[in-house]
């Protein structure tokens, strides 16, 4: 049983839970309460030096960084559940391209928007609306590029779903849930919208989206 140390509502913890669901990997969540700052406790930072969640303990093997955990679990169980990383060299290269697109052309913008509009209010802070506007504006051209890519193929790396698509779900769902001009970013682009509906309605995501 994979031991998952994280916070039920955390984006990165839910990503790992999602991969476990896709791959039919049983896991046990041990709560690290972010609202109490437990991720900064010495007992936690001894294992995760950046004071972040999640990390896993897989039969004594400790790993952190949710995308690394996703890759590790997907490779450990290649023939179980959904196949999430290709092994053919060319397909793998296109997967790496898609994974990098997610990190540097999506999450780097959507993450801070969600930080301002969702996480700050939870801590009683005011969003920096000017920053949100700037970020949203910069997201538009990125999503135009996504539209081009997704009009030619079903998923970001090709015609099969991969981890690269699934990594969009935790922050993307929080972003889309803001409605209005935020949801419009996806809804106004037909191929992007088609892709978003596809990945966000996967049973594995529905099983964990409200808590790992």
């Amino acid at each position, binding site marked *: 049983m994979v031991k998952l140390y994280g916070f039920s509502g955390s984006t990165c913890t839910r990503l790992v839970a999602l991969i476990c669901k896709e791959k039919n990997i049983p896991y046990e969540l041990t709560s690290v309460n972010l609202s109490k700052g437990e991720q900064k406790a010495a007992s936690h930072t001894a294992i995760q*030096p*950046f*004071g972040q969640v999640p990390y896993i303990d897989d039969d004594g*093997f400790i*790993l*952190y*960084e*949710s*995308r*690394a955990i996703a*890759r*590790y679990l997907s*490779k*450990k169980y290649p023939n179980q559940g959904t196949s999430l990383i290709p092994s053919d*060299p*060319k397909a*793998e*290269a*296109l997967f*790496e*391209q898609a*994974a*990098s*697109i997610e*990190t*540097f*052309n999506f999450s*780097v913008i959507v993450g801070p928007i969600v930080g301002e509009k969702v996480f700050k209010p939870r801590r009683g802070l005011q969003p920096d609306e000017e920053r949100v506007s700037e970020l949203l504006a910069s997201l538009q*051209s*990125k999503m135009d*590029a996504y539209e*081009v*890519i997704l009009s030619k193929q079903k998923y970001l790396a090709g015609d099969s779903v991969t981890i690269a698509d699934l990594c969009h779900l935790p922050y993307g769902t929080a972003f889309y849930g803001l409605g209005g001009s935020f949801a419009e970013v996806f809804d106004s682009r037909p191929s992007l919208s088609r892709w978003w509906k596809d990945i966000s309605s996967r049973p594995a995501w529905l099983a964990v989206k409200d808590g790992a």
Partner: protein
Amino acid sequence: MVLKLYGFTTSICTLRVAVVLKEKNVSFEFIPVDILKSAHKAPEFTAYQPFGQVPYIDDDGLILYESRAICRYIAAKYASQGTPLLPSDPTAIALFEQAASIEASNYDPFVSGLAWELKFTKLFGGKTDEARVKSLQGQLSAKLDAYDVILGKQKYLAGNDITLADLFHLPYGAVILDIGLDKFSSRPNVARWWKDISSRASWKTVKGGIHQGNAIHYRVLQSAL
């Protein structure tokens, strides 16, 4: 056919690919794209790279963009030549992925933000946001404290062997030092690691920019690009 690298001579991401090509002894042809004249936003370019960013490669017809994806592709394709940069056993691979993710999430956002505010924004007519600089500096310091803990236990970010994850840090690390923000020297393990990776011959060869002397063939593209 020799691999073609489309990029800008001193671009961070172009240099990231170049250092790996050198480390793996892979010959390449460099085709310069003048980003200061927005050549990367022209339709002839975005047909290949829809985000309008440099670099991309054409490896015998395979088009690939995103510098870290290109680096991984080269390191895997040429696994048996030059320096090994990707491990092969599952545990080491997982720890490499952890290190690669650390670079992407706990280093790049802060160094790229500082590089933008203190150097690059001016090239494109913008001005420095001092509040943002202060915030990014604070965050980067905290991250590098964690790096110092990790590098106090092992030689490189993924373990005791160098991997792509270490090399990925080079281009922005050099820019940060160049603009006078030395976050490395005060942290002994980080300093040791930085000195190690930044004195590699592959980095020294390309860090000043890609030009005729360090690509196999420097070809100025005499077209609309």
